[in-house]
């Protein structure tokens, strides 16, 4: 008898997840390699560029870490989220769910060519770490863990 309640309880908990409201999230501006490189060339603060997509499961896993890092280092490090090969609705839904309060500037690259132009690859997630001179310090492929993220942020702040 008790076993009948377990699936019902699971369904009830799953049903309790609220529908995500994306009205507060603006459309992501589409950018290009030249625009991003121009921004990196003129930056005076270290920059972290995280490449993500709403269909990327590992991106969900690292999103809370990036949000925490962006909040912790606000004013010291500039965080850019580069959404690739995605649609606006999916991207906005992802931001509303996983980056709700983060001081991260999100840009869209529907073709997904910018990471390759910057020296990366087609895989997501990718995280680029640039020092205050716009020099690439580290390119991390795949999911990033808290230690690596904190270490690389510390490194770009000290260079």
């Amino acid at each position, binding site marked *: 008898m008790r076993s009948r309640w377990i699936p019902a309880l*699971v369904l009830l908990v799953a049903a309790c997840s609220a529908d995500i409201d994306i009205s507060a999230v603006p459309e992501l501006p589409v950018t290009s390699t030249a625009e991003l490189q121009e921004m990196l060339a003129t930056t005076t603060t270290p920059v972290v560029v995280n490449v993500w997509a709403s269909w990327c499961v*590992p991106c969900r896993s690292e999103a809370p870490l990036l949000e925490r890092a962006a909040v912790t280092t606000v004013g010291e490090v500039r965080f850019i989220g580069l959404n690739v090969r995605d649609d606006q609705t999916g991207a906005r839904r992802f931001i509303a769910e996983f980056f709700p309060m983060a001081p991260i500037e999100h840009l869209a690259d529907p073709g997904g060519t910018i990471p390759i132009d910057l020296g990366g690859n087609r895989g997501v997630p990718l995280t680029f770490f640039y020092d205050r001179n716009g020099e690439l310090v*580290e390119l991390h492929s795949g999911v990033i*863990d*808290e230690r690596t993220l904190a*270490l690389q*942020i510390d490194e770009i702040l000290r260079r």
Partner: protein
Amino acid sequence: MEFTLLGAAFVAVIALYAVLYWEARRGNAAGCTHDLWEVAIAAAAAGLFIGRLAAMIADGVNPMTNPADIIIVRGGVATGPAAAAAIAVAAWLGRRELWPVLDGLAAGALAGLGGWHLGCIVRDSCLGTPTDLPWAMTLQGSTVGRHPVELYAAFAFLVGAAVLAQWRQRGKPPPGVAAGLALTAAAAIRLLTEPMRPALAGPIWWYTLGVVLGIVAATQCWRREVSRIDAQSA
């Protein structure tokens, strides 16, 4: 695909197996009919699962709506809940002979943790906060010297495992004392090395709790044995 984590896990398993094998050969597992290797692997798997689940919940990711995230171990594992789950599973599996099982796993668990931290070499993630000490190491292309903090932890865990295994063989401590001391050592090593790890945030009260619980467990087991001997001699 990220395989470096598997490499670190492999080093941990080898270290765990080596110590359990050494202890079995030396007769340290006498009085324990359980297969400690099976208990250890089951406890480690349960710890990993619960630790990952706890990390997801702490990060605000709903495991019910995002079940696939559970397998992304690199996304983070909450150490405290993972350790609690591993100990609970080991205790449950060995409940018929609780202390012999936990004591039998003690040195092996320390060695496994040492192997996991030593696996930072495979993961290229040994470095911590900046230092001017002569043995400081640098990231590639950097001039900032850093503590090789994971190597400190690995060394401490492996020394702890060796000392505990030798003591169990020569000193024959009362039941439960080795397990309590292993918990104390593991939590203390993490507590002492934590300030040298770069972190975004993160409470370290789990480690303080581990030290306290380990000391309490070891002391209580020791006192119980002393009382038993006194009662026998009276």
